[in-house]
Structure formats: C-alpha cells, structure tokens
C-alpha cells in the first residue's frame, strides 16, 4: 500500500488557528492511553496516530480511508486535558471533520442534523405533541427560532452546498468491520 504525503493538506492544518498546536506533539501517547474510545475499540481508534498522520500530511488515510476514524472521537476532551504539550487535539479533529464534510465523507447523521438546522433553526424541531406537553406542564410556549437568519448564516458560509454532498451509502470504516468481527 502506498502512502501519499499531501503537503498542502498538512500546511492547511498547521496554518489554521486550531492546528497551530499540532507541531508541539512528541508522540508520548498519553492521549491514546486515556481515551475512552480507544479503550472500547481495542486501540483501533487512536488519537496519537491521528495527530502524527496530520503532521505528516497523510490525507488519504485520515479523510478517505478513515484509519483511524476521527469520527469515533467522543469529544470528551480528556486528551486535551492530559496532553503534556498542550496540543489541542479535538481542535485538530474538528478541522479534519470539516475537511471530510465537503467531500461527502462524514457520517450521514451529521448531514441530516445540518439539514434539519437549516430547515428548522433547531437540531430537534418542536412537534405538536411536545407543544401540548409543555402546556400540560405549565411552561411557556417554546421560543421560535429566527429561521431566516439561521439560513442566511449557513448560506454565507456555504455550508448549505456542502450538505448536498451527503453520501448515498454510509461510508464503512475499518473500525466498523473490526467491531463486527469481534461480535461487538
């Protein structure tokens, strides 16, 4: 298997406000040692590896092949708290996730949440049954979000166009296969 180094990808990460701490990493592995997601995937999900691959510019592994799969991060922020070098790992992960979205490579649930927020202004829109329950509980009517303003923001950042890249099939990650083989 060939490994492609994408310098542009690497530089893009390092140049962004949330990627500047990346180069502090000395690969001690404290992040992976404390990571709950690594714990339950037998280390297949591995934050230390995501960081070194980001630093090396291995875009195909991180974005296309999802090895390791950055979307398995629980965002519990334990690694950020424990890192002796103050690498803001989850900020780097955010950047990798944002890069995946435009390529149609994020998990489907993210695209659906984005579309719901675009249409309704809320990740979870109000339903008639809940409106009745609110009245029954004696609390005020739910605040109505300013949907037009939300849509203007999402159009401004062009996220609406990225949301249209939603994959038809859920991309299968190696972790997923590994989990199935284990029967978990």
């Amino acid at each position, binding site marked *: 298997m060939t490994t492609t180094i994408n310098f542009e990808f690497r530089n893009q990460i390092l140049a962004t406000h949330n990627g500047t701490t990346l180069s502090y990493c000395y690969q001690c592995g404290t992040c992976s040692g404390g990571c709950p997601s690594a714990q*339950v995937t037998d280390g297949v999900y591995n934050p230390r590896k995501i960081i070194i691959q980001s630093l090396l510019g291995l875009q195909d592994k991180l974005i296309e092949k999802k090895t390791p799969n950055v979307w398995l991060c629980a965002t519990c922020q334990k690694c950020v708290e424990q890192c002796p070098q103050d690498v803001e790992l989850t900020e780097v992960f955010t950047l990798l996730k944002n890069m995946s979205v435009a390529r149609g490579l994020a998990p489907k649930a993210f695209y659906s949440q984005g579309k719901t927020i675009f249409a309704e202004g809320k*990740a979870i829109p109000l339903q008639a049954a809940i409106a009745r329950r609110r009245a029954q509980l004696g609390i005020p009517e739910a605040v109505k979000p*300013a949907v037009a303003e939300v849509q203007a*923001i999402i159009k401004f950042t062009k996220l609406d166009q990225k949301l249209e890249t939603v994959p038809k099939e859920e991309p299968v990650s190696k972790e997923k296969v590994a989990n199935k083989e284990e029967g978990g």
Partner: protein
Amino acid sequence: MATATSSSEKMLFPGCVIQNRLPYIEAASRKALTKLGYKLIDMEGASCCPDPIGMQGLDQKTWLAMGARNLTIAETAKKSIISLCNGCTETLRSVNYFLNHNLHLYKDVNEILKSIGKEYHGTVDVQHVVAAIYYEIGPEKLRANVQKPLTRLKIATHHGCHFNRPTHIIDPEGKLGPWDNPTMMDEMLDALGATVIDYDERYLCCGYGITLAESGPTEKLDAIKFKSLIEAGADYLCVACPSCYLQLEGVQRILRKNNVIEKDIPVLYFTELLALALGFGAEEIGLNFHAVKPKEIIDQFK
C-alpha cells in the same frame, strides 16, 4: 427562601433537546429556579446553540457564527445566560473564548452577522444551571431551604465531560473543580438530603458523541459505567446534560437485553431532584414522562 443575588434576572437557554424533547426537565428547572429567586427571561428568536459535536463537526465557522448570533440576543438585553445543557454551555462559552482570543475570527464572524444586521461584542456571561446555583446559592443555603429531603435515595452523579471541559474554555478560573473531578452536584445533593454514592467510573464519558457515527463503542462504554454504578450500590443517576440523559437512559434497554445489567437505574436531571427537595410534586414536574421511570421517587414525592 434563598434568594439569588442581585444578578438574579437571567436569560434562559434551554437548548433544543430539553425544549423540544424533554420539556419536563425545563419545567423542573423553571420551577426550581423561580422558587430560588431567579427571574427567567426567554431568548426570543434563539436558534440551536448549535450542537458542539454536530454543527462544529460540519463547519466550525458556521457553528461560531450561529452561536454568536444567539449571544447577541442576550447582549441586546444586557443579561447573562443560564443554560440547561452541557453542550449549549460549551458552544456559547466557546464562542466567547474563540472570538475574544482571535481577532481574525472575531472579524470573520462579525462580517457574517452584519449580513443579518447583528453585531457580536462579547459582553455576555454564560453559566450552566448547576454551576450558577452552586455559585449563587450554594449548598448551605440549599440545605436551609429543603422542604422534602431526598432521604434514603442512593444517588450517584455524572456531571458529563462538557460540564467543565475543555477547562481553558469552560472553566478558566478553575471554579468548577479539578478537570476530572467536579463534585458540585454531589455536594448539593448531599445538602438536599440524598445519600450520595461514589463509584469508580464516575468520570467515564457517556459516549453520546460517538453515536452519531457508530453505536457499538458507546454501548461498551456504558456497560462499563453501569456495572460500576450497580457495584457501588447506586439506585439513581443524576446528570447535568440532556445528551447524557438520553444516552444513559436509552442505553439501558439494550444493556438489559444483553444481560449486562439486571436492574434499572432511573436517570434524573439535577433540577428535577432539586425541585422535589424544594417541595414540588413528582407529577407537577412530569417525572412520569421518563422512559426509565423512577417509580419509588414518584410514590415518595406525590
């Protein structure tokens, strides 16, 4: 009755999940906060915070701009915000952190907001309801205001990762306790008369953040958590976040089916237990709407 301090007039940010899916948690929060002397004002036009995992994962700048728009509502009203959700608190505090520490982002976001006639200044403070009650009322005043103590209830707590992490954003002054050991809810539940249960896995993540991608790893995490809870003798789990609530309540059906756990651990949000101790009835705050019903609590606090 304990009265909150001079800044007791607050804007309430319930968040999508509580407002539109778990309104009983909003009811308990409104009732308890009002009884403690807070005056709550709705944030007209507020949208999704938006979700620090979902929307931030999609596009960080959109996430910041939408969050900043929500903050401008409170800026205009010159009021600070009480949030009922760890995720919303994280988002809104992150907006303040990122935009106040990075002039480029501040300008970018304000350029976006200009297109809808708004401007972000960074003048509004955002507190989680648990932190607000702890700072502004405190365990001792709560103790003095208990009408129906939570006697004999064995309750363990799960503050949730985003309650205080990342600490440089959520808790820069270090007031919420060590990053891996917040105990605010434990201290306040003790003051309300509960038997607070310590357990090994109290800081283990609920795993909700992974479920948007896959559910397998999360179920394994929660199996570890619930085994630890049961071993320690907890009967109830008190949470501070609606995502943790949904995850830790919902996963129990699966864990029971797979014979990982043999008993239910009803999950309660902190203000539900607070409202009960302040004298509200279980029905009044909608405890019967829980998926895993706290039957004995419902009987004890009629």
